[in-house]
């Protein structure tokens, strides 16, 4: 499954981070991304952050998701 969701890093604990997906918080593995700070946005797939995203891009994705949810 290629579905990935953008989320915001709110807490970091070594290899893992608490990622906020717009209200739902999940523990995500951040070993695959460099240089992560609290407040960064990441694209998450199968429990791993796979890329950093800008806030603008993350919000655009979330907007697209909600627009397409009803279609």
């Amino acid at each position, binding site marked *: *499954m290629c*579905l*990935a969701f953008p989320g915001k890093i709110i807490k970091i604990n070594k290899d893992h981070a608490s990622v906020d997906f717009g209200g739902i918080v999940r523990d995500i593995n951040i070993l*695959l991304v460099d240089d992560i700070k609290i407040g960064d946005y990441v694209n998450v*797939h*199968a429990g791993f952050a796979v*890329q950093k995203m800008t806030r603008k891009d993350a919000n*655009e994705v979330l907007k697209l998701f909600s627009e397409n949810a009803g279609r």
Partner: protein
Amino acid sequence: MPDARIKKIIKEIGNLARSIGRKVNLMEVCGTHTQTASRYGIRKIIPENIKLVTGPGCPVCITPQEDIDAIINLALAGVPIACYGDVLRVPGFYGSLDQAREKGAFVKEVYSVEEALSCRKEKPELVFFGIGFETTAPMTAVAIKEGLTVYSAHRLFFPAMEALLKIKGLKIDGFICPGHVSTVIGSKPYRKLKIPQVISGFEPEDMLASVYLLLKQIAEGRAEVENEYSRSVMPDGNPRAYNLIFEVFDAAEGTWRGFGSIPSSGLEIKEKYSAFDAKIKYKDILSKIDFSKSKLSTGCRCAQVILGLEESKECPLFKRVCHPGNPKGPCMVSTEGACYIEFNSTGQ
């Protein structure tokens, strides 16, 4: 994206299709693109002369029967197995993993390989069935470094694209490139293929924009790599994830359902990590399996459907005998399989 912009893109697609005139085959090679195209009726939106062909983008579908039968035999021999959900119901000669579970085998469905790592507390001998391309391979690499035993059926995706272009009778005028494989490998590797390519995101707007960009390239006689999914794909991808793959795996000959053997497309666990290689650890069980039986069901056209040579509806078993409740091949089992998606398409 506001509806006005979508309407404009659709109109531009129409204009380009008319100016090109001839039939054009655009191949998408990612299971989630197949799903988006189906769910949002993209094939019905684009003009008649533009065909969106489904390629080998479903990792479960391209995993060869031998690997499926191997993991099922391990399960039946008492080895605890963890796997991604889609694999559970793929029918092998010896049944499916789901059926093995009914016979008492331990088979755990996981969303993330991390769940398999946690499961080792309960089952220290757990083997994870590693399938997928460059998106999931780094995750499996992380887990192997943390001591998880893995049966690797991982594949590198790009060699398959090269192989597709060599298939006689398969006309491909452009590729919609996979979004998350590209997140890892970047956009640069695709330059090797001298054919129009657009890396696409997964929303319908992304795919329509990608079709537009491909048609524009074709109309203008260009063959470039364009990145429509720039919010996730960088030119160099994710080097950390990419390098992790090759820290743990070697590229080796890989067998693909449909293609057969493709050089340097399989990922085998490096000797350094051989203690976690299920193929070595369980050599005794694996060497006794009769793989001569590892073939698709008679009449099943998955191998041709995977390559885009045939459509699901051309398979004699499709809907007549083969459906999600009674799948005859992996294309009907996996939610990313062409046949499953076609079967569930509401035809909007």
